[in-house]
């Protein structure tokens, strides 16, 4: 899963039946600072997310099929939550010198 930001909507009349009645949103993946990375995906929304929302995205087929009740189902990315808070340890805590690595 990853945290992304909803940046747009996609409308398609001609699509595979697995997507019938589903909302498709464009999501841009966020980095650890919450900045957009340009790595986007078109995801099915089951969390009533809207443009601008920070969301939790699952990008895996089996999970997506389970959520949407499909088999087969050609869906990978699904918006499964709307993010309120993210708490991280400060960037310095991930610095390599804090780990002792022996080769």
């Amino acid at each position, binding site marked *: 899963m990853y*945290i992304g*930001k*909803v*940046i*747009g*909507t*996609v*409308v*398609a*009349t*001609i*699509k*595979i039946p*697995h*997507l019938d009645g589903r909302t*498709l949103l*464009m999501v*841009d993946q966020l980095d650890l*600072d*919450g900045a*957009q990375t*340009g790595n*986007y*995906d*078109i*995801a099915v929304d089951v969390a009533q997310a809207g*443009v*601008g*929302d*920070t969301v939790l995205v699952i990008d895996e*087929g089996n999970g*997506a099929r389970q959520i949407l009740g499909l088999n*087969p*189902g*050609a*869906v*990978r*990315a699904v918006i499964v939550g709307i*993010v*309120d*808070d*993210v*708490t*991280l*340890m*400060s960037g310095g805590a991930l610095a390599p010198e804090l780990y002792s690595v022996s080769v």
Partner: protein
Amino acid sequence: MKLARVLGTVVATCKYEGLEGIKLLVVQPLDEELRPRGLAEVAADATAQAAPGELVFMVASREGAQALPETFVPVDLAVTGIVDELDVAKAEIRAEVTARWHEIE
């Protein structure tokens, strides 16, 4: 799913069983601003209606085959829809902070 522009079609007479009757398209993956990103690829057309020039979205990897009538086929990219309308938010809406980021003290 990612956006792509359909560039053309591919015809292969001799192909692995299960691929008969599947329309193959040459597609150019696109970024958020619809600029080409990466190399062109070949995708199976699960809509059966995509034509060169059209803006489509496609699903990759194992899920590509799941889009086709026969799901146990050697396909890893499939066109799953033709885009009618694409609405991308303005920069100021994208810049709006909608979640709180904290640091552990």
